[in-house]
């Protein structure tokens, strides 16, 4: 048992940190520090810089463009990405459909899709959730009826994050309506420019538009876009959902947010007194820092156990990462309200180009704080709500 990083691991961290320092465009970094969302163009620019370096999909197998890193190295890379802070790679391609394609797809699919994911030539969206299904994912109703060399898709998907930019969407569709719930589902890749597809934005409580509804009305999808076998889609979906482990706690991102809040609290004054001198505020920060340190160690335990674990089998401990990670992220957004104080109130729409039309009321940095607090309620809901996570732990770990 050796709980410190090896010299090699520390050297690797330095290498990554230096690369980020030298190559991450300053305008993108500034935007993320301010708590704003990177634009599509920002993501494309940064992904291509990383891809040139060979770091766009480091966790993939080497033959498909992976970096051949250990789990600890992958963890360090992810952590540094959040600390920079740099945008994270578009997960729908790199962590979701990519691994499904290289694991279950055919050679043609691999050749066609994988390089385009790594270079973000293709923007992938996720078409899993449906209205009325929620955490009961397998209750999906979208159908795909075989018609010669095509599937005819009808139905509706929802919560499609950033679907407005989507080139392709990977979907779960019901190909055998007679089969039981989890059976009869297939995994289908659909070009979003196909006729019959309508994308409608859903406005969220923060006023933003990051999720969408996607409607399918007699959409003709080439049969070659089926991944793996027909009616085996649920297995691929489980594989996909179990894949997201290490990043889910977002420890690095929370560290970066705390650092930022401390900086702002040292600058922002209550009369003549910097906010950071308020002991109660400092203690609330420290309480979150402790939780976060414990979570970081929990995460490292999961990462270190990776090599002893059966490939593709999700670690139930990842549910802890989800629960605590989301609680901490939300607690930080709540504390941010306190830094802004009365200046949480003014609302400023975050427009496409991240500029604003009118001068701010109060400090400019305060504007995203309330919207982020509102918006981040989602993190304990999506990807299986925290209540579902508790059900999973109760069953899988405690045997209740």
């Amino acid at each position, binding site marked *: 048992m050796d709980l410190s990083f090896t010299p090699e691991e520390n050297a690797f961290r330095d290498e990554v940190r230096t690369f980020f320092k030298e190559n991450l465009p300053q305008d993108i970094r500034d935007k993320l520090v301010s708590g704003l969302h990177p634009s599509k163009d920002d993501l494309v620019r940064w992904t291509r810089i990383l891809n040139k370096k060979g770091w766009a999909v480091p966790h993939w197998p080497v033959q498909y463009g992976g970096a051949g890193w250990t789990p600890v190295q992958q963890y360090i890379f992810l952590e540094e990405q959040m600390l920079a802070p740099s945008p994270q790679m578009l997960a729908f391609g790199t962590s979701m459909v990519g691994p499904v394609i290289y694991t279950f797809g055919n050679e043609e699919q691999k050749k066609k899709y994988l390089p385009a994911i790594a270079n973000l030539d293709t923007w992938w969206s996720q078409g899993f959730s449906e209205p009325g299904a929620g955490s009961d994912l397998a209750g999906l109703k979208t159908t795909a009826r075989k018609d010669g060399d095509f599937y005819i898709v009808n139905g509706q998907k*929802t919560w499609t994050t950033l679907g407005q930019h989507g080139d392709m969407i990977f979907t779960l569709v019901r190909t055998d309506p007679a089969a039981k719930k989890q059976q009869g589902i297939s995994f289908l890749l659909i070009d979003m420019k196909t006729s019959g597809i309508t994308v409608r934005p859903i406005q969220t*409580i923060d006023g933003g538009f990051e999720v969408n509804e996607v409607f399918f009305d007699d959409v003709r999808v080439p049969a070659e876009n089926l991944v793996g076998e027909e009616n085996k889609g649920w297995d691929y979906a489980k594989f996909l959902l179990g894949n997201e482990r290490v990043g889910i706690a977002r420890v690095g991102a929370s560290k970066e947010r705390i650092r930022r809040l401390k900086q702002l609290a040292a600058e922002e004054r209550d*009369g003549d007194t910097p906010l950071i001198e308020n002991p109660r505020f400092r203690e609330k920060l420290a309480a979150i820092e402790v939780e976060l340190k414990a979570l970081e160690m929990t995460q490292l335990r999961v990462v270190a156990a990776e090599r002893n674990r059966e490939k593709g089998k999700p670690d139930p401990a990842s549910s802890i990462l989800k629960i605590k990670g989301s609680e901490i992220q939300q607690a930080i957004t709540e504390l941010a309200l306190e830094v802004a104080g*009365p200046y949480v109130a003014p609302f400023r729409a975050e427009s496409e180009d991240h500029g604003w039309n009118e001068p701010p009321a109060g400090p400019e940095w305060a504007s995203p704080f309330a919207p982020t607090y509102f918006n981040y309620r989602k993190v304990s*809901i999506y990807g299986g709500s925290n209540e579902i996570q508790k059900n999973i732990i109760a069953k899988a770990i405690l045997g209740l």
Partner: protein
Amino acid sequence: MDFDLNEEQRMLKDSVDRLIADKYDFEQRKAYLKGENGYSTDIWSQFAELGLLALPFAEADGGFGGGPVETMIVMESFGRGLVVEPYFATVVLSGGLLRHAASAAQRATFVPMIAGGEKIFAFAHGERLARYNLAHVETKATKDGDGYVLNGEKSLVLNGDSADFLIVSARVSGATRDRSGIGLFLIDAKAPGVTRRGYSNQDATRSAEVSFADVKVEAAHVLGQPGDAIDAIERVTDEAIAALCAEAVGGMAESHRQTVEYLKTRKQFGVTIGSFQALQHRAVEMFVMVEQARSITMYATMMAAEIDARERARAMSAAKVQIGKSVRFVGQQSVQLHGGVGVTYELAVGHYFKRNTMIDMMYGDGDHHLTRLSNMGGLIAA
């Protein structure tokens, strides 16, 4: 000790509740938000007709002589409706200043304008570095003949963009946070030298940044004795806190009701999600939070008329602590129990969550008041 409403209070409650039920559902409200100043002048007229705008003023001034309980009744109903009309800025804040700081002659001039629904008033008090310190006033009032000249900047002035009149706090003497040396000045919002920049708030209310460059105030529009205004400002703020607590209770109760309703209808895994015990208990914990908030609001309401400023302050801090705790829990859990749709703009629960979050942050959030209360020795003497 009697928690039942008397006959007049019951009638008031019935009429406000009916107005909100009939004219202020979530869809109707969307239309009102598109009004010129972000609210409906038609609804404002109906408030006037119902007598709501005259409610807290003395009968001698043309009002109905309502007290904190009457304001609580109105604000709780407004909370359920997510009312965006400038009642709080005009009647509670500005009206309160007229009641506590203005002369009979001034009241005779201005109260009817409010009571009749003709004019909107706003209280221009907050400043950039004030945070929650009510004595933080940098804006200067300089003697000028019989009157004064104002110079400075006010921030986060609720309904400051649509107000016809502004009551402005300004310093006639002393340093920025001195309690003495503050005056109250009533000016026409379109007076020369006044610049206003309006904007929306997170909760669909509107505010303005207002600056004053050599704005003249005639002697007749100086409220009270310049220099002594802090007592009236604190008193009005305490009344305002009690009113906001009631609004928060109305919003929470409705948000909770809608959430329980959702639990009863929404199905997942083949059953209504309200059959899951963990969610049932959550709904109960929300209920307890709402009822505790309602209780402390009654306490704040009772204490809003207290003359001893320190005792009143203790009560208001206690109320803000409980309200802060309750609105966070109820708001967050209303969204959580709705799942994905809870985060969408189309559902009301998100808007209750936002409005109540803003109420929590007004005049200091719960933790601010916890520190304040503990520094005053708490509620129970050793």
